[in-house]
């Protein structure tokens, strides 16, 4: 009997041909859940590499083994490599008697201004005094949109109307915040396409001239494969258009993932964005009111992706 048991539980070495069909079906699933193709491929390749030649008991199916490895890989990707405690950073800046500055950037219509207002609400409710800087001087109604939010939130709005240099307005806003003892300046910027060089230059100028404490890239959960390109090129532009190329690069520090309430279980953009930047998702926007701001829940993402 013991010898029989041994043959049943005898180990099996995983070969490429065992893994290939299983990985193919997981890859398909990841893409259906809106993970960018390039990222789905890389994930599957790394899982394949980690499993090749590994021994599994014949009780374990290849599929379960791959699933577990994928789960681990995704958890690793989603686990932040830096502190995401913004409140502590704001307090540290306050101790230095200077306002903490956050810049919100991203392509058109993803939810920069709305989620800036939500972050403002969250900071306020944690005792942080905020100021909003209206540095979208291009899109019609952008200033009035922030006026409504600043009135509702009871925070000052620093604005200079339309058509002006955004970098200069941000600078004045930060100076004014310092003078009036504001703890945190939230800088709204105009939406722009990542390939639009003049606009990307202007954004880099705003960043390098004002040296914000935190650069948040706002990306919508609805976005498909473009997520990878958006983040790559926003980072690239911040590097390429830096005034001093020898200085350490100033890149995106974190992601605000918006419209999370519109995608059901197609949560893949979260993976694409974090994989591309190596930076964490700091906030998840999940609705259109001030309360609709969450922290990312890794388990939710993994469950939705691999169910």
């Amino acid at each position, binding site marked *: 009997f013991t010898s029989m048991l041994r043959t049943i539980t005898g180990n099996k070495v995983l070969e490429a041909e065992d893994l290939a069909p299983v990985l193919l079906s997981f890859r398909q699933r990841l893409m259906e859940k809106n993970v960018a193709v390039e990222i789905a491929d890389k994930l599957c390749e790394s899982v394949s590499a980690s499993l090749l030649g590994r021994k599994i008991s014949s009780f374990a199916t290849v599929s379960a083994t791959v699933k577990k490895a994928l789960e681990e890989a995704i958890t690793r990707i989603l686990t932040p490599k830096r502190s995401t405690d913004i409140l502590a950073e704001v307090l540290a800046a306050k101790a230095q008697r200077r306002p903490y500055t956050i810049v919100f950037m991203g392509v058109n219509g993803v939810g920069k201004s709305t989620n800036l207002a939500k972050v403002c609400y969250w900071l306020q409710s944690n005792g942080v005094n905020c100021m909003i800087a209206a540095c979208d001087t291009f899109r019609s109604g952008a200033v009035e949109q922030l006026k409504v939010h600043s009135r509702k939130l009871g925070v000052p709005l620093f604005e200079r109307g339309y058509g002006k240099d955004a970098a200069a307005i941000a600078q004045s806003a930060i100076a004014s915040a310092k003078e009036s003892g504001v703890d945190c300046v939230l800088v709204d910027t105009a939406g722009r396409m990542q390939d639009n060089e003049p606009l990307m230059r202007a954004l880099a100028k705003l960043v390098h001239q004002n040296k914000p404490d935190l650069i948040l890239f706002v990306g919508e959960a609805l976005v*498909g494969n*473009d*997520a990878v390109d958006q983040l790559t090129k926003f980072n690239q532009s911040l590097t390429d258009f830096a005034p001093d190329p020898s200085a350490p690069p100033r890149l995106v520090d974190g992601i605000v993932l918006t*419209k999370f309430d*519109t995608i059901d279980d197609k949560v893949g953009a979260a993976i694409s964005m974090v994989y591309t930047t190596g930076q964490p998702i700091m906030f998840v926007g999940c609705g*259109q009111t001030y309360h609709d701001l969450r922290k990312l829940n890794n388990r939710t993402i993994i469950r939705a992706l691999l169910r």
Partner: protein
Amino acid sequence: MVLAELGGKITKALRKLQETTLIDEKVFEDLLKEIAKALLESDVNVQLVKKLRENIKKTINFEELAAGVNKRKLIQKAVFDELCAMLDPGKKPYQPKKGRPNIVVFVGLQGAGKTTTVTKYAYHYQKKGWKTALVCADTFRAGAFDQLKQNATKCKIPFYGSHLETDAAKIAEDGVEQFKKENFELIIVDTSGRHKQESALFEEMEQVVRATTPDDIVFVMDSSIGQAAYDQALAFHNAVDVGSVILTKMDGHAKGGGALSAVAATQSPIVFIGTGEHVDEFELFNVQAFVNRLLGMGDVAGLFNT
């Protein structure tokens, strides 16, 4: 340029086909796989890609292909035709009629580009001599009316809206009524962004539609949207009578594959594309030209006549 990369990939795959002397099933399978990958990378719905592959396989029957037939040409043409067919719902878009009021309501997800696009659409017709007007029925988004007002003012297009009224259907009805009385020919209604998961928002859209009895409902979609496109578009189609689609932000890097999902889900043709933030960055949509660009082929005729 939009689609350039996808175009490049598909062209490469097709070119490989031209370079191969013997086209057997293996070559054919590889080609289909490559094309499928390119389409997925452009955000075409996973299920639609599957269907496309199956359809092409059906069109090209290897057993039946006579020895003399040019297999390459057949496969290339099958891919092209299949993409065109997917973008053609077989329904003509609504054409506004001169000399009477035409009411068009714009709907779509949050931030898709509705408010920007209503002005582009009005401006397009105004330039052609139409008497156009805009109604702002977005009572939700902060600054929505100011946005529309500033855009309309720049283009000298009459507009209607309110900072105080909170009932979107009422504003829509009143605005349309007023412009009808003033003999406007094209009355365009902008609405708030919404999504299928929030039923109250869809109810509001249905109320606006009931209050205005539009001649056409335009679904506006962002070209960078991923796999959620189909479900959202389908929900809009099921709630109201969507008749046309406009694809925005085509000046970005996104390849616009969601367009195929929108057409499939709404059974409605794409009428225009938005190619920038400025009012004149707006183009009529043409299926053949779009697929040419999708495949990276400037001159299709040339490709097929070789």
